[in-house]
């Protein structure tokens, strides 16, 4: 069917579709902001609603929700040190320290602006380059996923430069946690102790909520009980007058390389069916830190960190839809559910979707631009109100956060077991914090462990007895990933040597 731009624009700007995009983003922000309520949960809940809608309208609802949730995750990350969705885990790194410096408002402004840029970038890539990029994504096989996971694990080195051994211990702990559950080779349960709920392993979301938010609420309670220890510089309220606005133009221009680099990483990881949003934002954060002239400031509360993580996860959302729409291979769990939504309407995702149902697909893609604009407006205008959270008396806030952590852990699968997991990891997280361990390497281990393990298993299977080194070197992408991993491991050492030779600059 011939599709003209005018038709598409007319479709997009039907009042119904505009309202759906506006509503979808808002629902997404709420799902994203509440820890435990993830993008995939929001999309799964609203999926049956779309069965009765026009196909394009249904897709717009789910797509806007996806984007909104990617941004929404940053709100909880910044304000209460708990990523609202796994994709916002990297946002915590600088988001919450900024909040503690009294820059919560600025952090939120940067988060929504970066999300907007990442979103627009991703949608543009989806619109213009979907088919060729989807084909490139197919070049990634099991060895490449294994190596990508390995490369991801080197992020531990970058983010725990100051305490590398503690970082490694925390990372290995995460990897060990990820071995709980059915093994990927034969499906035999490991370390489950006969507990049925552990067959799929420790669920990332409750573990993450526990690791991040329980230590934080304990801290809140401790401070409430010992107000004399309060330090002015760690109040976590916006000390500047609360105002509505965008980040300063000068800063935006300065951040352009960060936005572009992170959006490319985000879209790229999104396209790969075996890697999710949390990996995208960590990698973007990592590369931004590495490229920065002042990497030592990362983690202390600077906007660059937020800009990297947030533009990456929103770009990832569109990236994940690329192989879903063009190949029928979803780029992540949310895209997988959206694919179900497409098929219910008799739209088979794949090579012919654009040709046969172009008007629907293009209406959907163009509407995503609109959804991103809504996201920017909501985020910008609501930011001052979000910061009110930090003015809440600490004893109320601590209890509210605890309530949310329980609700969120339960809501994930409707399973009380996940609440126990959350509490257990909360205790672990608190002990880690007390003893100076960062929880981020543990989270990375839990995320990347299964990807590395199943990648390695399948790699050995498909190498069919060939020498593994020869096998890998013969695959160009594998070779590149091996080199990147080696460089990534060497980089912190290189910098330390350089700094020790040049002490004035450090």
């Amino acid at each position: 069917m011939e599709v003209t731009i005018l038709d598409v624009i007319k479709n997009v700007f039907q009042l119904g579709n505009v309202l759906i995009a506006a509503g979808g983003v808002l629902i997404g922000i709420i799902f994203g902001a509440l820890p435990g309520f993830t993008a995939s949960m929001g999309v799964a809940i609203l999926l049956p609603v779309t069965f009765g809608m026009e196909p394009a309208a249904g897709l717009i609802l789910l797509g806007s929700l996806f984007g909104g949730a990617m941004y929404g995750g940053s709100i909880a990350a910044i304000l209460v040190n708990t990523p609202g969705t796994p994709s916002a885990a990297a946002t915590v790194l600088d988001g919450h320290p900024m909040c503690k410096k009294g820059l919560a408002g600025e952090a939120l402004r940067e988060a929504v602006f970066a999300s907007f840029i990442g979103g627009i970038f991703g949608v543009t890539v989806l619109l213009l380059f979907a088919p060729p990029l989807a084909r490139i994504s197919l070049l990634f096989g099991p060895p490449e996923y294994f190596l990508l996971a390995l490369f991801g694990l080197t992020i531990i080195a970058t983010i725990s430069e100051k305490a590398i051994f503690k970082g490694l211990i925390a990372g290995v702990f995460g990897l060990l946690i990820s071995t709980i559950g059915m093994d990927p080779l034969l499906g035999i349960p490991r370390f489950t102790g006969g507990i049925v709920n552990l067959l799929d392993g420790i669920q990332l979301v409750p573990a993450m909520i526990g690791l991040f938010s329980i230590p934080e609420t304990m801290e809140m309670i401790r401070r409430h009980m010992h107000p004399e220890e309060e330090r002015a510089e760690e109040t976590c309220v916006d000390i500047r007058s609360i105002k509505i606005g965008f980040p300063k133009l000068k800063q935006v221009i300065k951040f352009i390389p960060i936005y572009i680099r992170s959006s490319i990483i985000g879209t790229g990881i999104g396209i790969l069916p075996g890697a999710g949003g949390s990996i995208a934002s960590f990698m973007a954060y990592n590369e931004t830190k590495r490229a920065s002239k002042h990497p030592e400031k990362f983690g202390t509360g600077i906007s660059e960190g937020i800009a990297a993580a947030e533009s990456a996860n929103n770009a990832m959302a569109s990236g994940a839809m690329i192989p879903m729409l063009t190949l029928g291979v979803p780029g992540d769990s949310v895209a997988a559910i959206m694919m179900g939504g497409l098929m219910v309407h008799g739209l088979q995702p794949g090579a012919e979707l654009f040709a046969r149902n172009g008007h629907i697909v293009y209406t959907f893609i163009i509407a995503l631009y609109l959804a991103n604009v809504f996201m920017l407006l909501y985020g910008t205008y609501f930011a001052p109100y979000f910061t009110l959270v930090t003015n809440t008396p600490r004893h109320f806030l601590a209890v509210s956060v605890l309530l949310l952590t329980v609700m969120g852990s339960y809501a994930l699968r409707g399973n009380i077991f996940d609440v126990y997991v959350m509490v257990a990891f909360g205790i672990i997280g608190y002990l880690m914090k007390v003893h100076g361990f960062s929880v981020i390497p543990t989270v990375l281990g839990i995320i990347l462990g299964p990807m590395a393990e199943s990648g390695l298993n399948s790699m050995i299977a498909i190498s069919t007895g060939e020498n593994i080194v020869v096998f890998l070197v013969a695959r160009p992408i594998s070779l590149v990933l091996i080199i990147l991993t080696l460089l990534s491991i060497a980089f912190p050492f290189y910098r330390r040597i350089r700094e020790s030779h040049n002490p004035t600059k450090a």
Partner: protein
Amino acid sequence: MKRRKIFSIIIAAAMTIAFTMIVVSSAPAIDYPKKPVTMIVPFKAGGGTDIGSRIVANYAEKNLGQPLIVKNVDGGGSEVGVSQMVRSKPDGYTICGFNSASVTLTLLRKASYDALNDVEPICLLVSDPRLFAVRANDDRFKTAADFIKYAKENPEKLTIGTSGAGTSGHLSILVMNKAAGIKAKPVHFKGAGASKAAFLGGHIDAVAQTFGEVWEMVRTGQARVIAQATEERLKELPDVPTFKEAGINLVISSNRGLAAPKGTPKEIVDKIADAFKQASENPKYLEDMAKIGLPVKYLGPEEFGKLNKLEHDTYSAIADELKKK
């Protein structure tokens, strides 16, 4: 309601204890269902089984006269949801999706329920035949015979993707290996999507997936079905031979049905089955299911039970061999 209870107690007092139990247990069947029925989907929200279940629930609840509340209890390849159902009251107010995987998983590991003795089969809803597909441009394999011959000459070299370890796709490869005396290598991925990506990217030689999962690739010319693990050729694939025609006894489909806890009264099981049977005859339902690529096949309680038994027996020998490794 109260009066009926008192009435039945009076009767009970007059009868023997054994007879009392019959009266009490059959009493609710008379006016079942009185309240909404929970339908557990033992898989993730948004997946194939979930969408299919939600669609059929829409139609079946009208026939049943009470809402069917779809609840996802995901985990362990359906074990978590099914074991929750098995442990619930056998009063017909909790039913659960029961797939091929729910049977096969109990063979591969010590599961928390017995697939044959702890459940009351209700009905089969979907039977998705398993097809072995190769890339359309892969000249090594023109026919099923080429495929088998290659596997025979190159043991452990023919790689076939599955949606995960212990899934029925995995077992179907093992059944094929045994039946044909070959050693094709199963490669496991997390879900059908990842397996499809590795297949299209040329990282593995073939996939063993259901009709619904490969049909689009076939229709758009990306993949070619090399052999069908069906009794007869599917009407969509009239030119592709079955494994049976190639001399290999391999008939496997991925079944999706419903089950209730053991001890659920027969009247109730029949009533639920009937509601789903009526839905399965509704042309609008068939149309909805065709759109998402799920082949509808209804079987009543007894036949579904027999099918589960058959799957159990077919796979148990294979599973025992696998466990020895």
